[in-house]
């Protein structure tokens, strides 16, 4: 057999092998497109690819670390003053926020409504970005071992980033909302109008293709998740409408939006577990609610006197 292969290499041996493998590829392609029973195979091989991703990421994180640790004194001073101003601004905002939060908790306590469900979140670092520019997929360093699951929503500090499409053991792939294959149920914050935001393949643009010409939507409207698809908890910002074109003879308006999250520049994302209240947050809520409950009572007592 080996002798034969050696003697006549240009005989159709590679051709035959190619035909077999091409058939196998076509079979895999169709199976992958039509059904999801290849997912386990994908996951297994994906776990083998994980060390490769870490190896690729290592020099970059090392470089970043070296860059940060050798930044010149001047830059550090500049950074420091910038951060100081930022801190002041943030603190000012935070004050208002905590006041609002306290008020909200108090009002809810008065209504005896349950305080709004909090989601458990966990930060995940990005290992790599899809090298295919027309497939907006990130790989993050949390997998099923950390509790990540397929369909899980991910956000960043500004808004919705995407959802997990493949949860491996140690890493997961996150499809961004700007991927042409991604559609997201959203709601216009101002009018309550519900629709679908579809990715376009560009990081800074979403399309809302299913809005009739007379829909109540304007430039600058904030889009939030509606929670109807089931994957995303409601109320997270998705983006702002940046153009509305109404052509009278077309049945649908052409509406585009700019994503709130900086999809092209994210470095960390947060995974959300909806419905699992963070125990610490829950305790804080209870603690915040109690003095508030005590306060009106005290006020009432003061009134009586």
């Amino acid at each position: 057999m080996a002798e034969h292969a050696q003697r006549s290499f240009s005989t159709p041996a590679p051709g035959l092998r190619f035909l077999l493998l091409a058939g196998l590829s076509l079979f895999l392609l169709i199976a992958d497109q039509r059904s999801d029973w290849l997912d386990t195979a994908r996951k297994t091989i994906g776990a083998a690819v994980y060390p490769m991703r870490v190896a690729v990421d290592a020099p970059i994180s090392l470089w970043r670390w070296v860059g940060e640790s050798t930044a010149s004194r001047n830059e550090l001073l500049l950074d420091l003053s910038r951060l100081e101003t930022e801190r002041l601004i943030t603190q000012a905002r935070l004050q208002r926020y905590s006041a609002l939060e306290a008020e909200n908790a108090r009002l809810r306590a008065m209504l005896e409504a349950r305080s709004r469900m909090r989601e458990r979140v966990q930060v995940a670092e990005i290992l790599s970005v899809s090298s295919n520019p027309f497939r907006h997929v990130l790989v993050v360093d949390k997998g099923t071992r950390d509790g990540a699951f397929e369909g899980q929503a991910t956000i960043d500090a500004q808004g919705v980033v995407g959802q997990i499409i493949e949860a491996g053991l140690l890493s997961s792939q996150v499809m961004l909302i700007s991927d042409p294959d991604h559609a997201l149920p959203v709601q216009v914050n101002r009018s309550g109008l519900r629709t679908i935001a579809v990715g376009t393949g560009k990081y800074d643009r979403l399309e809302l293709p299913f809005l009739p010409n007379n829909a109540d939507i304007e430039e600058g409207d904030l889009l939030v998740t509606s929670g109807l698809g089931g994957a995303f908890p409601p109320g997270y910002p998705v983006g702002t409408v940046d153009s509305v074109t109404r052509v009278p003879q077309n049945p649908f308006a052409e509406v585009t939006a700019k994503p709130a999250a900086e999809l092209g520049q994210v470095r960390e994302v947060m995974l959300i577990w909806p419905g699992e209240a963070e125990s610490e947050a829950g305790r804080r809520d209870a603690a915040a609610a109690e003095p508030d409950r005590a306060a009106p009572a005290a006020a009432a007592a003061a009134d009586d006197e």
Partner: protein
Amino acid sequence: MSSRRDSRLPVLGCFVAALLLSIVPLPEWAAPYRPDWVALTLIYWSIALPRRYSVGTAWLLGIVLDIAYGTLLGQHALALSFITYLTVKFHLQLRVFPISQMTLTVLALLAVYQFILFWINGVAGIYPELVIYWGPVAAGTLLWPIVSLALSGVRYRVTS
């Protein structure tokens, strides 16, 4: 036998390096021009050692690429094994080509490779912009002389 096994390691290293280069993050402006490192490496080794690195190697590397890129399983595998098949079939002619002619051949092979990817994407209903297909072909062709020079360094170490 042991010397032959030793000689496999450097070539394996080349393939691993090509895979790493294929997934290393690039700045946004450079990403559409990422050359198909795996395809270039495969073309080189299937001309140099066609008995050892041929369609099967190409297919396995293609599957790894499909997983790493998250594309349809079998897409890169099919494209890589096809151009490797062409290379192996004509490896005797290709070996005597001068570098200029060889670079043109690489251009054709990479174009065929991207065309297969384009075709499968089209059937699957994915229609990206065309520049995404031409960027890697142009970059790969321009890099071919350097890649083949570097890999021939490895090859003389392996076969001597």
